[in-house]
């Protein structure tokens, strides 16, 4: 009797399993969108472009794009599905691009569709397109999937120490944090080649400014407390050019009176080796002289950068966070008033330890 009951239960499971009612998402029967781009059409109409790879049997990849306009991102997906032979899914999204105009208006509303969707990962790259995202996404870059190409482009540069770390999670972190503002790379086409043009500076979710290529690594060492492989180069004088690469940098904030109108000093220590040294005659490297020159250069550029941030009223370096963690009477409003006026200095200390295989 007991056995019959157990068998009966087993039969019930098998039967009921049949009506589990789950939608299947079989890998080859879905369209994996790998990148999306948002362009502004007018006031609150977006044009959304979605790229998905079509794998050919020979091993090649063709990128297809779908475009539609609407004012809600998810509704857009329904609209896009009208044009697609297989359901579009966003679980393998690698890159989300926003046009400059849109980014300047603020993107937090559109970002909601990414953060709310459990199938979208945290490692999605957020980027700003210089020009129309549609144009960028419709291009075919080599033999790969456009989404993977774009994310690899950004990721590779992040890992090589060219630009600061960024992804969806870090963007949202900065977006919500009280004493920190997010950044995102600006990508653009120049002569059909995709390039990382600048780093966009956001005030919460609005693009307000950018940092050019020459200050990339400086921004990086100032944003990240510990970083590696950042490179700096300098023309000491007409015939002397030096390029160094960091083996490790450390950042130290000195805040004497947090939440008050007192100076903030940022001590930046760079341990570096010489990558390249071009001089007129083959002179012996004067380490100290080079160190001094770099320190001067970094200080000048750094102070200028900070000035720019303060004028824009943004804080990508997270000075606010540093103050917050040092004070017991943190108040965002008060800080926001204080920040543009407060004087922030950068005190770099370059230490060249190696000179490569040559001396």
């Amino acid at each position, binding site marked *: 009797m007991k056995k019959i009951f157990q068998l009966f239960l087993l039969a019930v499971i098998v039967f009921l399993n049949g009506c589990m009612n789950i939608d299947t998402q079989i*890998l080859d029967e879905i369209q994996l969108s790998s990148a999306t781009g948002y362009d502004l059409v007018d006031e609150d109409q977006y044009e959304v472009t979605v790229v998905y790879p079509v794998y050919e049997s020979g091993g090649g990849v063709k990128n297809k794009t779908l475009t539609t306009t609407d004012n809600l991102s998810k509704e857009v997906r329904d609209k896009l599905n009208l044009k697609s032979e297989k359901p579009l899914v966003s679980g393998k999204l690698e890159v989300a691009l926003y046009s400059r105009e849109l980014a300047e208006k603020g993107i937090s509303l559109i970002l909601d569709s990414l953060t709310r969707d459990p199938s979208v990962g945290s490692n999605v790259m957020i980027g700003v397109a210089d020009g129309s995202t549609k144009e960028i996404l419709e291009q075919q870059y080599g033999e790969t999937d456009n989404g993977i190409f774009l994310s690899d482009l950004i990721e590779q540069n992040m890992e090589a120490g060219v630009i600061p770390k960024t992804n969806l999670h870090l963007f949202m972190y900065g977006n919500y944090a009280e004493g920190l503002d997010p950044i995102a790379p600006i990508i653009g086409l120049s002569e059909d080649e995709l390039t990382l043009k600048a780093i966009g500076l956001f005030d919460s979710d609005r693009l307000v400014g950018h940092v050019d290529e020459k200050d990339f690594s400086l921004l990086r060492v100032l944003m990240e407390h510990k970083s590696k492989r950042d490179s700096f180069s300098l023309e000491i004088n007409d015939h002397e050019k030096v390029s160094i690469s960091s083996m490790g940098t450390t950042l130290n904030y000195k805040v004497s009176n947090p939440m008050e109108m007192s100076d903030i000093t940022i001590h930046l220590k760079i341990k570096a080796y010489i990558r390249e040294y071009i001089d007129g005659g083959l002179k012996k490297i004067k380490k100290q002289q080079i160190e001094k020159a770099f320190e001067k250069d970094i200080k000048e550029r750094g102070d200028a950068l900070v000035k720019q941030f303060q004028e824009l009223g943004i804080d990508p370096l997270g000075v606010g966070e540093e103050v917050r963690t040092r004070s017991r009477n943190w108040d965002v409003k008060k800080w926001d008033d204080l920040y543009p006026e407060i004087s922030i200095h950068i005190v770099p200390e370059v230490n060249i330890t190696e000179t490569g295989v040559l001396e």
Partner: protein
Amino acid sequence: MFRTRKKDKTSAENKKAAETIQTVFNDLSASDDFKQSFVTNRHVTFCIGFYETLTEADILHKDILHNVQKAVSIEELTALLPFEDLKISEDVTLIQDALLQGSVCIHNSISNKQFCLVKAKSAKERQVAPPEVEFSVVGPKESFVESYQTNIHLIRKRLPISNLVVKERTVGRLSKTKVGVLYIEGIANKENYNTVLQRIEDLNIDQIADSSYLTQLIQDNQHSPFPQFIDTERPDRIAAVLGEGKVAIIVDGAPHALIGPTTIFEFFSAFEDYYLNWLVASFFRLVRFFAVLFSILVTPLYVAVLTYHYELIPKDMVSTLVTSRTAIPLPPILEALILELAIELLREAGARLPTKVGQTIGIVGGIVIGTASVEAGLTSNVLLIIVALAALASFTTPVYQMGNTIRLIRFPFLLMSHYIGLIGVAISFCFLLIHLLRLSSLGRPFLEPLFPLRVFDLKDALIRLPFKYQSKRPIQAQTEDTVKFNQSEAKHKNE
């Protein structure tokens, strides 16, 4: 059959007084291989009865007939015959049983109702050969054969101690199979061997063809796919586990002996593990455990991920998987089932056919069917690799019976992975764990030392520590004497 025999017994008892040679041999002479012959010497006539198919002609001619010609009476005959185990009896059933075991019965009509029984069993048995199922490169190359005597001989040879006890029972109304329960007195727990003996005595069955019958009949949970006794063909393994305080069962006519109580981990330890360096052995054991998990889980995971969880696939692997599947019209579950079944068919065909043909089938079938199904677009080549690896992994299990179990339990996993994706796999895994937790072997927990957690027994479960640390017997067997050897003394000697 049983009834008629019983009747015979009672009738024989009734007519005890009137017993003649006829009453004894009457029933038997129905079969043509039962021979009766009369030898007359100068004094008396002896009647000799025997099964010619069961007795050794050599013994009969040289020893028995030779002496029968000289004897005057049964008493004198017993003195003359050069056998140590002579019986004189007048019990009809005993005589008949003895005849069926290959004895020769000698009777003389003059000297009352005494029947002399002489053992002249012909020993038709296989030579002791190297183990085939549990082959090992290092270590002894002996394996059990179908003879009870030889098998016990092989064990006793390795444990020449008086404490090694063999308890014999006969099972099967038709087969009358001799079953021996072996244990070492003073080490093995009484409860363990008494349970085995009790269960054997309680059996009510007509035939026992092999020890595997016994496994199925006396294990704790007969509906579980997991065997709860290890069967082994290696006498060295039996000797070792007897020393650990476990109980071994030898069945006459079976080339495999059984071991109990056992744990699931023992099924994945090959005995060769003890012949190799402990690091190597531990590594091999871990590989085997990994193989089991791999074999059970990998195809279900493939089905689950491809059916429901595309997000899990790393971005660089997506293209490989999609390209391999684009031309395939079947959903992943059918694809996987087809391949799994194909592998099962190959295995089954290989097992049923003679060895040489079987090998050919395996290779030809594997290559031809595999390549063809990929080219025909029925299965993806990625899955083909996965299924083949999973099959390969399932063959690494040293105990054949457990290997079969593992091949079986993949299918529920596969179905569940199709129904509820990864969560289905997890749920099946939970069912499996609970099932294993509920299992016991001779009343001892089957999942030990994982549960009940006995850190000490982990010395010889997932890994095998050096012998120095194996100084105590496993707690699971609840031995009476827990110490194998004195660890500190052993250390001392080393120094």
